[in-house]
């Protein structure tokens, strides 16, 4: 066990897409109870520094495992199929067309109800893609094939973020 140990091993959880939220939360607290700098407040600078590194590392792993999108991306990467979000930008035409339609719908939406309807639509597509990820990652264990739905989910996440900002602005 060290700072380079992978997220799943660090949390003592099976290295798979399907995760039990309650187990993840409780492991996080068990680990922080061990490593948090507050537990070493009276033990000198060296112990503080180590505690801070570990505590930050545990938070990083927790953040990545908690969100299904980052968890899926991480699994792909662990199995030699990196997402390369920045360099690899080729997406299927049908997906891009759908994105353009959503963007136009977002620009046109003037009411809370219109935005909420769009959000529901987006969330539906998101759930389908997450199901596809689960199938590819946990059942077929085809990590290279899972890269595409993960990349689609990244687009959707960004779109949902912009949509939520519009909702905030309207409120």
């Amino acid at each position: 066990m060290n700072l380079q140990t992978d997220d799943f091993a660090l949390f003592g959880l099976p290295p798979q897409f399907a995760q039990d939220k309650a187990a993840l939360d409780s492991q996080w607290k068990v680990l922080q109870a061990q490593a948090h700098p507050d537990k070493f407040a009276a033990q000198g600078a060296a112990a503080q520094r180590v505690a801070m590194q570990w505590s930050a590392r545990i938070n990083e792993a927790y953040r990545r495992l908690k969100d299904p999108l980052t968890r899926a991306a991480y699994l792909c990467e662990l199995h030699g199929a990196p997402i390369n979000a920045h360099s690899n930008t080729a997406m299927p035409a049908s997906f891009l067309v759908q994105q353009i339609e959503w963007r136009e719908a977002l620009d046109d939406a003037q009411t809370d109800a219109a935005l909420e309807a769009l959000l529901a639509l987006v969330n539906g597509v998101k759930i389908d893609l997450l199901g596809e990820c689960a199938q590819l990652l946990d059942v077929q264990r085809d990590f290279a094939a899972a890269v595409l739905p993960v990349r689609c989910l990244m687009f959707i996440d960004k779109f949902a973020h912009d949509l939520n900002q519009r909702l905030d602005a309207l409120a």
Partner: protein
Amino acid sequence: MALLQISEPGQSPNPHARRLAVGIDLGTTHSLVASVRNGVAECLPDAQGRVILPSVVRYLDVQRRQIGFDALAQQSSDPGNTIASVKRLMGRGLADIANAERLPYSLVATPGMVKVRTIAGEKSPVEVSAELLATLRFRAEDSFNDDVYGAVITVPAYFDDAQRQATKDAAQLAGLNVLRLINEPTAAAIAYGLDNASEGVYAVYDLGGGTFDISILRLSVGVFEVLATGGDSALGGDDYDRALADWILAQTPLQVASQEDQVMLFAAARACKEALSDSEIAPVELDLSVGRIDLSVNRSEFEAVTASLSARTLQAMRKVLRDSGLGKQDIQGVVMVGGSTRMPQIRTLVGEFFGQTPLTNLNPDEVVALGAAIQANQLAGNAVASDLLLLDVIPLSLGIETMGGLVERIVPRNQTIPTAMAQDFTTYQDGQTALALHVVQGERDLVADCRSLARFELRGIPPMVAGAARIRVTFTVDADGLLSVAAREQVSGVEAKIEVKPSYGLSDDQIAQMLKDSFSTAEADMRARSVVEARVDAQRMLLATQSALNADGDLLQTAELQTIDAAMYALRAITASDDAAAIEAQTKALAEATEAFAAQRMNRGIAQALSGKNIATL
């Protein structure tokens, strides 16, 4: 992990000897100090039995000052030298301060943080705050007839990096060892949660004299997890006073002509506001230099005048709820903190928003200091086998400036701290050998709309074509919520690092100078103090190392053990001397010698925690 209590050699034969640890609520309007005595947190009173210290400092001349009630009493007769609400100035430049022209004292625009012009010279808000902190420190030391080992100081959850750093600097100036800065709503939740043995999700609505915070926390056995926090670090009871004062004046033909009048009018407005919490109508009678005011204000008038202020808190509540990913129905209780939550309109507003009656069974003035004291007691190692764990978040996003004045966010708000996050950047031009980094904090997309925290440069990048360099910028936020930034070019290994401090706050040199100029002026005094402090640090380090060796010494190879033994021996040998610098150097040497050991122990601790948990759940 249970910490063993060990009394300092030769200091006390009592095995239960404890370190004096205090919690301090450094408030806009008033400040308090609390400590855990016989297992119970309590606020410490002054000689007159008052637990509240008005956050007011009056400078009489270069040497003398009044602090607290004495200063408050002179506010209207000497407004220019009587500094109230200094918290609003912490970590702020002149341009940041709303209504600066209406303050009864005059501000000086100095680079970084604003200063106040007084009869005793220009005073930094850090120095003024240090006077308040030192007063509370002395109060605690008198109460227990002991030195303060360390303090937990509370800050508004919505304080940014500059405001937090300024608070920590003030504590250092007051001679306090800061165990931790913690957020006010979190401190309140500790006091509330432990008192009521509560579990579930709670909202803490904290409206103080000058700041507003709203936090959503999940409470489970011993764990206080902040899910999201929001607020406004320039909104509080002061603003309600000002709005009411303006309205009162508008009912008369009078115009305020002097700072004395201004102070009296505000004081009358505040008294009227407080009276309106208990009655439907309250009188305002006062004699200004320009004439007499004699009228009455009813509650609905007051509420109408201040409705826009209350609405701002409502907006923040909506946002924080969204950030937490929860709905109103998930909130089990709403805890009210801060004197301003006594206003009936606030209780109604919060009650209507969350659809439940807010909890007001704790004294809203004391609860923050009490929670801080509980945490201080634990951090000092007094609470045996206690497993209180705070998992707090950073309130505002952190990022750096990219091309076109846009912000690239590196640490999004509401991340659990401590945290380290990195992002890669590249060069813009062929042959570019340096990179200027501008660190900002805030939620807006334009750099101009965010707070500038620091600027620094990474130099010595080997010339490459544009876009070829890989510059990794790492933001590290520690458990106090304070940021440090490092940049490293991955190909060449060129590095630059900054504790985000010099560009807005006070440099270490300035702090050293202020320390020299402050209370403990006598040089011999200072030297004696520094030797004592160095010895205490050395003893602490020796004890910690010895107990680590007892627990996990088997992890070490013989040679490693010998190195640590030698460093301990050398430190023991030098602690008897009067050379503070030499003791400090040797303490540091021991810390370095044990660094690898500390890492090994942590690895073992984590592995054990995991296996213990797995066995328990199987």
